[in-house]
C-alpha cells in the first residue's frame, strides 16, 4: 500500500553543528531537528570506550523538559545507531546527537486543558521521526556508517486496515501501533509494537512498513538503484523513505553546494 504523502527531509539546516537535518513526518506530524557533532572529545573518562565510538543521544520534547519517556527513546535510538555506525573507525571519540521536536500536530479532541504528550501517552509516534532525523543528521555529518536506516510508523485500525504514518486522531483509534526500522540492505534493526494484535496482523504491518521505508520489494538484483529519482521499478514514484533521503542528499550535494 503506497505511502499517501511522503515525509519531508532537509539536510544541513543548522550552521554551527558538524551535521544537521530536519525531518517532518507525513501528514505534517512531528517535525524534528537533529544537530550532530562528530567526532568530539568524550567529556567523562568513564564513558570512553577504548576501541569504539561512544554514542550519546539527547532528545528534547516540544513542551517542557525530557522525562522518563524521552530517556527510553534516547536509549532505543542509541542502540539502533550502534548497529549501523562503524564505531571502530574512530575509537575513544564521541558521536553526540541532539534531537529537538519543533512541531507537533496538536490534538484538539483531548479534553479541555489537557496537553498532549503527557506521561501516559505512547512514545512510538515520536520514535519513528526521531530515528529518521538522527540518521539524516549522521548522514549530513559524514558519520561512517555501513548502511542507512529508516523507520516507519504503522497503525492497525480496529477493522484491520493498515495506516502508515497515522495522524494524531487516527492514532487514538488504532488497535495497535507498530514502528519498524530497516537498513538499506533490508534488515530489520528495530521492532516496537504495542496494543492488541495477532501474528498475521504483525506480519502485515511489517510488510507495510518495509514498503514505506525501502520502496517496493523488487529492487534491482545488484542492489543499486537508478539515481534518476523516478524509480520505475518501485512504481512508488520516489515517495518511499529512502528515496526521500536520496533526494535530500542530492539537494544538499548537487544544488546546494556548501551552503
Amino acid at each position, binding site marked *: 500500500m503506497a505511502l499517501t504523502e511522503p515525509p519531508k527531509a532537509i539536510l544541513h539546516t543548522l550552521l554551527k553543528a558538524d551535521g544537521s537535518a530536519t525531518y517532518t513526518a507525513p501528514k505534517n506530524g512531528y517535525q524534528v531537528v537533529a544537530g550532530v557533532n562528530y567526532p568530539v572529545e568524550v567529556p567523562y573518562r568513564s564513558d570512553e570506550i577504548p576501541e569504539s565510538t561512544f554514542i550519546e543521544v539527547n532528545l528534547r520534547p516540544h513542551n517542557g523538559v525530557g522525562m*522518563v*519517556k524521552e*530517556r*527510553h527513546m*534516547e*536509549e*532505543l535510538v542509541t*542502540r*539502533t545507531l*550502534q*548497529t549501523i555506525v562503524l564505531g571502530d573507525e574512530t575509537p575513544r571519540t564521541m558521536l553526540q546527537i541532539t534531537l529537538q521536536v519543533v512541531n507537533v500536530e496538536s490534538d484538539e*479532541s*483531548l*479534553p*479541555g*486543558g*489537557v496537553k498532549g504528550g*503527557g*506521561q*501516559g*501517552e*505512547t*512514545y512510538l509516534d515520536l520514535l519513528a521521526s526521531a530515528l529518521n532525523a538522527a540518521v539524516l543528521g549522521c548522514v549530513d555529518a559524514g558519520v561512517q556508517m555501513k548502511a542507512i536506516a529508516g523507520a516507519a510508523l504503522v497503525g492497525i485500525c480496529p477493522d484491520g486496515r493498515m495506516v502508515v504514518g497515522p495522524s494524531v486522531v487516527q492514532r*487514538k*483509534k488504532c488497535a*495497535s501501533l507498530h514502528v519498524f526500522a530497516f*537498513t538499506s540492505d533490508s*534488515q*530489520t*534493526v*528495530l*521492532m*516496537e*509494537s*504495542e*496494543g*492488541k*494484535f*495477532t*501474528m498475521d496482523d*504483525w*506480519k502485515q504491518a*511489517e510488510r507495510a512498513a518495509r514498503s514505506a521505508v525501502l520502496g517496493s520489494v523488487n529492487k534491482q538484483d545488484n542492489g543499486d538503484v537508478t539515481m534518476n529519482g523516478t524509480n520505475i521499478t518501485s512504481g512508488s514514484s520516489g515517495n518511499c523513505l529512502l528515496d526521500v533521503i536520496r533526494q535530500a542528499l542530492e539537494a544538499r550535494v548537487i544544488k546546494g553546494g556548501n551552503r
Partner: protein
Amino acid sequence: MPSIISPLSPDPSVPASAMPLISPNALLYAHLKQSPPRRPSSRTPSEPRPIQLNVGSLAHCNGSSLVKIGATTIVCGVRAEILPVTEIPSFRITKAGASYTPTAPVVRDTRYQGDTEKDNKEEDEGEYSPISLYNLVVPNIELATGCSPRHPANAAPSTEAQSISQRLLSLLHTSQLVRSSDLEIIYTPPAQAEDLELGIDTDPQLKAYWTLYVDMMCISHGGSVFDAAWLALYAALKDTIIPKSWWDADLEQVLCSAEVADARKLSLRGIPVPSSFGVFVPEKRVLGQDGHQDPYWVLMDTDGFEEEACAETGCITVDAGGGKGSSLILRIEKNGGSNVGVEEMVNMVTLAERRWQQWKTVLDAALSNS
C-alpha cells in the same frame, strides 16, 4: 562449569578459570558451539529459568509480591491513595450517568446495566482512559539498591531503570490491565424529596479516584529484569485489596472502612506475560579459527552474564489466556542488532506461550495458598 581448553590461547599459564574475565564472548561461544548447544549456566538456549512467587507478605501495603527468576529477585508493593477530583487541574465532571466524562465527546461504554454482564464483557477503556490521562497507576522500579556491582546504592535512577519503568507503564496502558471503574469513588446523594424542587441532582457524581503507587525494589539483578518486574507488578495487583470507601458529604472527605471483609479486589484484564531474549553473535576474532557459518544464537530469558554478551535484545509479551485459538500479542520489542527478522519471531512466539503456561501455573499455586 565444564572445563574447556580456551580456544584462544593454548598458553597453559592463562588458566581456563581466567577465561570469563578475559573474554566473556569467547567463553559463551565455546559453550554454545558444542552440540547440543548449552549455556554456561547449563541451560539450553530456549529454556527459561524457573519462577518462584510469594504473594501478600508485606504488612503496610494493599498488595505485595516477591518474584525470583534465577538470580533476579524483585519485591513489589502496591499502595492505594486517594486523589480527590478537586485536586485534578482542569477536571470537569459532567452530569451524565457515566461515572466520569471529561468534556471529551467520547462517550464511554454504558456502565451501569447489570454488573454481572460487565465482568466477562471485555469492555474497552475508550481513548481517554482516566488511568493514562491522570496517571492513576504509577509503576516505578528502583535499581539503586546495590543489586549489582554496576548499580551502586543510592545513585539517581540509571537509564536502565528509567527504560524498564517506561516499558512497564506502556504495557500497563496498552494492555488496559486495570479497569478505571475499579478506581472510581462515586457519591450518590440521597434522593430526599426537597432536593428535587431545589434542583439538586441526585445522579451519581465522581468524587475521587484511587491512585495505585506500584513500587518495585530490585533486590538482585540477574538479567531479564523487565520480565520479573512485570510479573511482580501483576501478582501484586492481583493481591491488592481496595477498602470500601464513600464520600462523607459534611466532612467533604472520602472515608474508608478498615474491614478486610468489606474490601474488594481489582479485576484485571487478561494475563500478559513478557519473555525477554538476547541474540548472541560471536566476535570475529573468535570465529576466525573455526569458520563456523551459523553466526548467531537466540537465548531466551538471558541471565546477567548472557545479557552482557548480547548486543541485540528483545522481548515478546503474549496473553494466551484469551482462549480464541492463537494467542494475543500485546507487545514486541527488539533493538540493538539486525539478526532477528520476521521468521524467527514466529517460533519465538511459541516459546513465549510456553512461558505463559509456566507463569499461569506458578500464579495459581501462589494465589491459592496465600
